[in-house]
């Protein structure tokens, strides 16, 4: 895999306040990359620098090794958090105008737009004015305008907010499609469950600095706690090596004493004919990691 976009030691200040502080990361072909962090962490500033909307004070952003410029802008697609289109324009006119600004031949737009509108079940709206559509429908149209020129990198800022479950699934499917076609998708969101479900790698920023960066499963495994989750039938009794039992909604959490491994506990359960429905080494959710990391830096 090769890097589509690389940020190296990027710094941005506003009125002397550091918004992004020495941030370095890259996004590879064919991956969904989560950009997460609390409000005011510097995510939007980072995205704007990647889109060449604002320039970094120092550091460099490159797309396919090339400095940002008019040609690289055409390889990127951006859907901002607060969405809007020209209210008086019709759907196809909006798509055509914004696609042409991304360097797409206007003559090719209608056919491609019809394909995407058809896929999203919105072909009937192609002649409608944007102001006649619901917020969710407008959001799907904006997603179409973001990807119609077949960008190599798509940046989606809170793409699922305001969408109903059906459209949320539709958008997820389309993100996976983009990934499978070798495109990179950067997902900036506060919905950690979506990040866990969709993202291969993440960058967590806080106060403009990188807090966590890398493969999501590796990051999570680094946060493995010293306990196992167990759902069983029968009488458990005392388990050697377990210092504490914590009752949860539909299972119990066994806290190990530090000398015993999860494997040893499982062997004991099997040996004593405990009917095990679920045995899982406990790892915190991304949401818990997020709260942990952000909380750590607030202290």
């Amino acid at each position: 895999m090769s890097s589509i976009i690389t940020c190296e030691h990027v710094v941005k200040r506003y009125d002397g306040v550091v918004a992004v502080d020495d941030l370095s990361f890259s996004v590879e072909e064919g991956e969904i990359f989560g950009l997460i962090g609390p409000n005011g962490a510097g995510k939007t500033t980072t995205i704007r620098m990647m889109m060449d909307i604002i320039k970094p004070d120092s550091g460099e952003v490159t797309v396919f090794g090339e400095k940002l410029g008019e040609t690289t802008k055409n390889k990127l697609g951006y859907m901002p958090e607060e969405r809007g289109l020209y209210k008086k324009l019709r759907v196809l006119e909006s798509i055509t105008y914004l696609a042409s600004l991304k360097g797409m031949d206007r003559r090719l737009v209608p056919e491609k737009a019809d394909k995407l509108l058809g896929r999203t079940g919105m072909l009937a709206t192609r002649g409608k004015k944007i102001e006649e559509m619901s917020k969710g429908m407008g959001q799907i149209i904006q997603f179409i305008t973001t990807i119609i020129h077949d960008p190599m990198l798509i940046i989606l800022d809170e793409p699922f907010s305001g969408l109903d479950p059906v459209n949320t699934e539709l958008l997820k499917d389309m993100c996976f499609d983009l990934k499978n076609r070798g495109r990179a998708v950067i997902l900036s969101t506060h919905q950690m469950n979506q990040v866990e479900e969709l993202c291969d790698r993440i960058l967590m920023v806080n106060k403009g600095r990188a807090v966590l960066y890398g493969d999501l499963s590796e990051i999570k495994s680094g946060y493995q706690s010293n306990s196992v989750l167990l759902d069983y039938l029968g009488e458990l009794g005392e388990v050697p090596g377990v210092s504490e039992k914590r009752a949860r909604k539909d299972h119990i959490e066994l806290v190990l004493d530090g000398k015993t491994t999860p494997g040893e506990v499982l062997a004991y359960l099997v040996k004593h004919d405990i009917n095990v429905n679920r045995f899982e080494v406990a790892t915190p959710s991304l949401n818990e990691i997020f709260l942990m990391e952000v909380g750590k830096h607030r202290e």
Partner: protein
Amino acid sequence: MNKTLLIFRHEFLHTIKRIGFVVMTLVVPVIALLAIGIYQLVTTVTEPSAVEVTTIGYVDELGGFDGYTTQGAIEFARYDTRDEATQALTSGDISEYFVIPHDYILTGLVNRYTLEKQLETPPSMVAAIKNFLTSNLLSDRVSRDTAIRIEAPLYVVVTRLTETGDIASDQGGYGNAIVPGIFAFLLAFSLNFSASYFVQGLGEEKENRLIEVLLSSVSPRQLLIGKILGLGAAGMVQVAVWLISLPLILGLASATIGGFFSTIELPPNFVVLGIIYFILGYLLFAVLSAGVGAISPGVREGQQLALVYTLFAFVPLWFSSLLFVFPSSPIWKVLTIFPITAPIAMMLKLGVTDIPAWELAASIIILALSIIVLLFLSIKIFRVYLLMYGKRPGLGEIIRNLRNA
């Protein structure tokens, strides 16, 4: 296609499809054609009937006012006493009456009685009574021709000569001022509307964050220049419609109505200077609007701020009566040189008097320099403030940020 051209095309088409733009563009020729049509209709309907004769009474207490009792469409009926005249008035035989008192020769005073509430005596009535009195006073003393000359002593016909003594092609007068006057009025509105569209468009793009999508595709410079050119071309279409239709309509008015309309002509260089001042005026208002649109968080704030300079465009129109009386007043020199008022003031002045070459040059050079300086500042403001959505910055903050930009 070049991205600036794409923005230009979008802004141009978007603007000319606006209902407000279409109405504003067509309203002038349509109203003028309607006015000519209504005039034609009224004259056709009223032509067959003869001019209605009005009879007014008079009481001659001085004596000697017996003749010349027909003055145009007014007939003078003599009554011996005020009571008789009052009775004739209240019974509807006459519409009004007047009394020539014994001491009229000493005082010139005539008492007029009427049933109508009026601000003052209608000028046509004053003229008729005056001619009736004069004719009778001069009867048997001077010839009839002399009496008529005393009643209407002069008609001034002015011929303007060139410095070599030839008849000048540009004769001046109200006939010369009418087209530049109308054009100045329309130009003020056009600049106003264009500035308003510009600020509104940018405000909407900021409010719905479309500006971020646009800036992820084009540079601020491409966006600004595309917008200025697109809106400018739309304004040009508007002015072109007016410039083409104005002489045609005035020609039609001259042919059908005649009179004053037949004296209307275009001052020399009017079309060339009209186009130059439209372009410069438009560019000035566009760069000002770009700056205002960039620092304003939304449409409403932007339009309020834009009032500061759009109202200035109308200042020369407020002073236009002063121009007709004192065309060489220093106020007019200031208005033709101050960039925001220059386009409108120059158009007005062009129709009234000659403009010295130095004044024209100073006006155009200062206007062009202002545009260059403001364009430079606007691009900087555009870069700094286009993505700031909060409170509108103060002047101090803007200057500080521009220094750092």
